[in-house]
Structure formats: structure tokens, C-alpha cells
């Protein structure tokens, strides 16, 4: 009986901790994502497969990846949703953050290369750990178009 109470207590404690820290981390992360998205807005990223032909560019692969794991509360809630069905909302925000973070990291790389565009953007997601330790990687990659010195053209025309 003591074991049962201890287990119940630890589940409640982990749920509370998972919820509080998970919420805090998510709020902070979203704030930083929105901030950085505004900062890096000047760099266009497009899914088009056709590169601009207005001037000569050097092309280079840029990637941004992020590995994410859910907190205890999110995993527990997802388990409950698994029984009844419906949208797994706790993972929606988690994956939304991961995709946007991966894109931002990719943009950072592209900006460091002084790219004018990144085109042919793609997302990839992989489960990299299963069982008790669940984690996923979200990878964003594309082709950075870096204007060659001495050529001219309007960088913002596609």
C-alpha cells in the first residue's frame, strides 16, 4: 500500500513539475522564436524548386536542426488522448516550436553566408529515440543563394 501511495505521489509530483517547467519553457521559447523571426524576416526562404536567374549566385546547402523531447505532463496527456482519440494538442505546439526553431537556425547559417535567398526549403523529421526516452529531430534544409561579387541585380525579385 505504501508503494502505491509513493507511486501516486511521484506521478503527481512529476506531472506538476512537468506542467510548470514545460509551460514556462514553452512560453519563453515562443517569445524568442517570434523575436528572431522578426529579426531575420529580411531573408526570404521559399519552397520553390526553381532558382532565381536574375544574376549569378553561388549555391550552398544550409541546414538547421533541432532535437526535441516532450515533458512528463505532455507525454501523460498524450497517453490519455491516445485512449479517447482526437488531436494530440500537447505535441502540436511542441512540433510547431521545433519546426520554427529549425528554420531559424537554418536562416542563421544562411545569413552568416550573406545569402540573399534560401530556396527549395524542405523539412524532415525523424524519431531518434523510442521507449522511455522519446526524442525527435526536426531538420530544415535548403539551398542558400549567395550573390557573386561583381554581378548586379535586385535580390528581392523572384
Amino acid at each position, binding site marked *: 500500500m505504501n508503494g502505491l501511495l509513493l507511486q501516486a505521489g511521484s506521478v503527481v509530483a512529476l506531472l506538476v513539475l512537468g506542467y510548470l517547467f514545460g509551460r514556462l519553457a514553452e512560453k519563453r521559447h515562443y517569445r524568442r522564436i517570434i523575436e528572431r523571426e522578426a529579426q531575420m*524576416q529580411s531573408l526570404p526562404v521559399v519552397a520553390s524548386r526553381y532558382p532565381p536567374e536574375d544574376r549569378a549566385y553561388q549555391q550552398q546547402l544550409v541546414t538547421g536542426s533541432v532535437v526535441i523531447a516532450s515533458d512528463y505532463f505532455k507525454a501523460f496527456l498524450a497517453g*490519455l488522448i*491516445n485512449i479517447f482519440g482526437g488531436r494530440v494538442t500537447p505535441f502540436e505546439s511542441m512540433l510547431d516550436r521545433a519546426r520554427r526553431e529549425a528554420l531559424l537556425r537554418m536562416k542563421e547559417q544562411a545569413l552568416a553566408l550573406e545569402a540573399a535567398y534560401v530556396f527549395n526549403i524542405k523539412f524532415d523529421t525523424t524519431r531518434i529515440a523510442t521507449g522511455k526516452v522519446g526524442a525527435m529531430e526536426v531538420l530544415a534544409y535548403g539551398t542558400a543563394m549567395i550573390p557573386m561579387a561583381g554581378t548586379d541585380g535586385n535580390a528581392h525579385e523572384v
Partner: protein
Amino acid sequence: MRYENRLPAEGINTSRVHPLRQFLQLAVGAVVLVVILVVFLQYAGALVARRIPFSYEQRVMERLDIEMGEAARHPEMTAYLNELAGRVSRHLPMPDDMSVTVHYNSEDVFNAFATVGGNLLFYRGLLARMPDENTLAMVMAHEISHVLHRDPVAALGGGIASTIALLGLTGNAGTGMAGQVMNHAGVLTGVQFTRSMEVAADDAALAAVNGLYGHVNGASTLFELFSASRDRQSSLAKTPWLERFLSTHPLDEDRIARISQQGVEHNWRSDGELTPLPVDFQRWLAVD
């Protein structure tokens, strides 16, 4: 066309649901679901299992040939326990086709139990603490009452039905901790059933003891012994209502109170003379 690099609006890829609200709704829903399911299956499983004829239950147990007790090494103790079971049975409304077999086990376990096929197992750990025959007869009558009420087979039937259902509900991959919590909720619901069986067995046993000795003195000694042994163990759950809810058996003090209340209701004497255990009882206990 001029390219415009606008940021998309927030909240398109996420749902606007408060996680705590969703959690509460689903958790309450899951627990209610489990409780309803287990209550239904315990009832239904027990109902079906109780319809299995006792003779069939006995035949199955004989065919399984499970080694119970140590009759070869302890023939005298085994014979005495069976003789006492016979005397007690005469004061219980046993059907003609029902009989019990008592087995003795020399392990130091403070317990005795009844299982399917009318088999009772008594441990040395329990017998060594019996102060008189009246106390032992109460334990014996309690266990025989379980057989009489078909509790072992009912618990087995109800238990199997609800375990399979819980496995189906929570055993699928991905439910993880939520599944475990639901399993515990199911087990706790099941426990509420065994407690009502214990109370019914106590009531029947007390009537049998009164029939056998003409009084109920010594009937509550067992629970006083249990209570004392439990007090020595440290327990996190000292809150009575919690202990009541989590335990498979009623609380010792509740059982003692019920025994004295039953005695008053039926006008049973509680001051009769106690019958001593057989002279050789301690010698039988000492055999290894």
C-alpha cells in the same frame, strides 16, 4: 509580381486548448470509464464464475494436481486441522456436495487463505500465534465461509474478466504512465469487492463459532493480533479512510467492532470458557 516577405499569423499550427482543462476532462473521463468497466466486469465475471458447479471446480483442481501443503511431513497437524474443519463445517450451511481440504505449510507467514476447489492453506506463522482453539476455529470458519460463498472462484472470474479488459484498454503502446495509473484505478475498484466478501465471511464465521462453542469469546482475538502486528510495521498510510479505501480487507478495528455488534444483535454470549488447543499442538508446530 513583387515579392512580399510577410510573417504568418500565430496559432495556425497549434490548437487553442488549455492543457490543464483538457487534462482534467480526460483524466476524470478515464477513471470513470475504468471504474464502470471494472465494476461491471467484476459483477459479471463473479456471477458467471459462481455458476460453475463446485464439483467441477474440485475436479479441475485435482487434475491440475498443484502441490499444496506438507501433509507427508506434518500428518498430525494436517489431520487435526481437517478434523477441526469438519467440526466447524457442521455449523455452516454447507451443501452436500461441498467439502474443504485443509493444508499446512511450515513457513513463518502470518496468514491463511482459501482457494478454488475448497482448498484452505494454513501457515505455521499463523498457527504459532493462536492462543486457543476458539481463535483458530474463527479463522477456519472464516476461510470455509469463503468457500461456501464461492468467493475464490468468483474473485478469479471477476479478476480475469477485468484484467483482460484493462489490458485491452491500457496495454496498447503509447499510453505509458497514463495506462499504469488507469490500471491502479482498476485494481482499487476491484479491491472494493474483496472487502465486501470479507465482511460476509466474518458474519458467517461468527455464527458458526457460536454454534460450535455456544459463545463467541475469542472470535475477535485474531484481529487484535493482526492489528498488533501491523502497528509494528511502519506505515505511510495511517489515515483511516485512506487505509480503508486501499485495503483488500476491512480494517481490524472495524472487524472487531462488527463482531461485538453482531454478538449483541444475535444475543450471543461473549464470556464463555475458551477451549484450549490440543496438548500436542506445540510439538506438531515444532516439527520441521
